[in-house]
């Protein structure tokens, strides 16, 4: 696999940047990738998608409880906020920031509403990330 992403994959990433789905942090990650760590961006994206899915599952469970532990909910949201900031998933990060406000207010309704928003923005960006990785994989196989 080439040390850098193919031009078409970079084009895909560029469209995610231009629509505000990703911010300049993702560009910084792309620039960090070099020959000594050719799978760095793939690894980061994969970790973000897997961790994010697990976190959203946990949040759903936590908010379904009769007695919600808002500190525990906030811990999960905080983790997703951190990983979304790391990968440049701007809208996911912003949804997490809003979520944390409702956790502070101990508002189950606010948290549930924001969880819906979080689900939408997370699956939007993770779906596009997965499509990008698939494109990269297909291009790598085509050039073998």
């Amino acid at each position, binding site marked *: 696999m080439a040390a850098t992403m193919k031009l078409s994959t970079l084009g895909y990433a560029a469209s995610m940047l231009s629509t505000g789905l990703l911010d300049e*942090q993702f560009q910084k990650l792309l620039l960090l990738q*070099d020959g000594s760590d050719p799978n760095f961006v793939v690894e*980061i994206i994969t970790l973000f998608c897997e961790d994010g899915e697990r976190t959203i599952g946990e949040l759903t469970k936590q908010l379904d409880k009769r007695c919600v532990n808002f500190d525990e909910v906030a811990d999960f949201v*905080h*983790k997703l906020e951190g990983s979304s900031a790391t990968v440049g998933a701007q809208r996911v990060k912003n949804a997490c920031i809003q979520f944390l406000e409702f956790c502070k207010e101990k508002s189950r309704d606010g948290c549930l509403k924001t969880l819906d928003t979080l689900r939408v923005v997370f699956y939007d960006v993770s779906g596009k990330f997965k499509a990008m990785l698939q494109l990269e994989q297909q291009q790598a196989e085509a050039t073998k």
Partner: protein
Amino acid sequence: MDRRRIRVLLVEDEEIHRVVARVVLRAAGVEVEEAENGAEAVRHVRERVTGGGGAYDLILTDKQMPVMDGLEATRQIRAMGVVTPIVAVSSDSLPSDVQAFIAAGANDFAPKPLTKEKLGHILAKFGLA
């Protein structure tokens, strides 16, 4: 004369942040050791102090971690008499979070994620560039 590589202890429980920080640190030419929580970090530091392996040049630590958080790890490292610069790298970046870390004995704070620019600033600040 060969210049010894800077030795950094990275204290971070989440893999995604360790992967990014590792790449940023290695790109800067530093030697990285990792701890997944504050208790491991304290153990690593103690081993260097008692084992004569030479102190770390820099410790980068997250705040929220299982077993022992970054604040407690910072307090315990300082209680050993270790003066290595400790920089908190955390998403918790309210003034109260920063003040808590400084009160625990940290030297500085950088909001996540760690980037080349932030690391460059940290290394320059502590004369490690």
